[in-house]
């Protein structure tokens, strides 16, 4: 991913991108898996910094939405039987599809990130509801079954790493334990 694309992505997220360039940026995101991944990461980090709840299901949801749309028979796919589609139009149809997917990836995914409000119908029906559902927890952090105590020990460990001398010298190794370790997978 080039710096220019990264800047565009960042500007798009911040709402600072010139509106004439928004469509092109959406197309770029639709085509570039690195950009889509970065889009998800930026949202995730933004949510974390704002102290919001982050659903596990956000992972890969842009691609999941895109795949779902590509395999969707109606109404997004060109209708068959109406007449043979001109091969000259194929690239445009593809681009439209990509733009549609990009639009959803850009504008629908943030909504999925937030998770549905209690009582709200799932946006886009069962299929999207399934995509945005949190993944089941597969691990027992700290070998404990009590989430509150797990959370407290995580807090103690992060706070400790920040307070302990020489943590910075060890690079991110102390923090790799926190996010790299996953028991009982």
């Amino acid at each position, binding site marked *: 991913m080039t710096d220019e694309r990264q800047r565009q992505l960042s500007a798009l997220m911040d709402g600072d991108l010139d509106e004439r360039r928004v469509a092109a940026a959406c197309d770029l995101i639709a085509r570039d898996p690195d950009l889509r991944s970065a889009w998800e990461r930026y949202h995730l980090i933004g949510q974390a910094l704002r102290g919001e709840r982050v659903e596990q299901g956000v992972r890969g949801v842009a691609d999941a939405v895109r795949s779902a749309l590509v395999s969707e028979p109606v109404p997004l796919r060109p209708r068959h039987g109406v007449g043979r589609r001109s091969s000259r139009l194929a690239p445009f149809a593809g681009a439209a599809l990509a733009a549609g997917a990009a639009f959803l990836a850009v504008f629908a995914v943030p909504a999925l990130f937030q998770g549905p409000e209690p009582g709200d119908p799932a946006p886009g029906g069962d299929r999207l509801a399934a995509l945005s559902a949190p993944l089941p927890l597969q691990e027992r952090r700290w070998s404990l079954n009590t989430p509150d105590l797990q959370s407290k020990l995580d807090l103690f460990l992060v706070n400790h790493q920040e307070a302990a001398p020489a943590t910075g010298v060890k690079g*991110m190794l102390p923090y790799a334990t926190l996010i790299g370790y996953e028991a009982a997978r």
Partner: protein
Amino acid sequence: MKPPVDVKHAVLVCLLALAAVSSADLGGSERAATMLERMNSALRSLDYEGTLVYLFDNRLETLHLVHRVDGGRIQERLLSLSGPVRAVTREHGRVTCVRPDGHPISVQSRAGRNLQRAERIDPAALADRYRIAIGGAERVAGRETDVITIEPRDTLRYGYRFHLDRETGLPLKSDLIDDRGEPIEQLMFTSITTHSVSGDSGAALAPTPDRAEEAESKPGHPSRWRFDERPAGFEPAMHDVMRDPNGAEVEHFVFTDRLSAYSVYIEADTGDGLEGLTRIGAAHAAGRRIGDHQVTAVGEVPAATVEAAVAGVRLADEDAR
């Protein structure tokens, strides 16, 4: 009777050999200090980004790291690329950790203070507890590295083996090792791109008077708690009071041997604290109740160390009785 000439020569040769060994040790120590200082400088002055693998207990996780020095502040983002979403960010003066259950936790970053004073590894100061050795050259992430090992002399602490990029000084591979030199967990770049920090951003990390003053402050807040019986080599380094997410006060004490460290947290007992020993990766935690209080020790140290830490906690007025 005078010793034969050959014996005199032998003694002289032995003395010269001892002097040579001692001089080599000194040279090795200086070189180790230079290498570690260069690593420290690289961590503070370079922008870099890359993919890492984290290995523990034969489990492998892929992570992505972005490290930026912006306006004299280090900003870091570490994100898991495999399994459930997990991330750590150090930005805007806070460290935030996104846990697998989706609930982020966030603490005030103390990196500004740490970077000024305590963030250096001084080989001479570690000599009692660690053996430091330079040796070997290996290729990591397609780059040549020099290896430096800080090996613990006992089982109460872990050490480190760093593979330092010959070009930049960055640690491209960091192993946490035990007293036999065996790796416990490993973090290694598989690809990395580096950039020099433009302008004087790196220089801006020099301590401001306020920060330096903060860094020099000594532990010594009044406390009812005593820690006379501690794991060997660990000294008190900090004491403050924090608040848990429910607003309850938690006393926090940090103990260090100048490389390894553990924290002791003491709070009112609510009946749901840790009893006994547990761990996550190489980090251990041990807890017990003392009267109406819950005592928990946490750190990237062996199990025996946190167990000894909680076992040695006493109430000061308990001793007076």
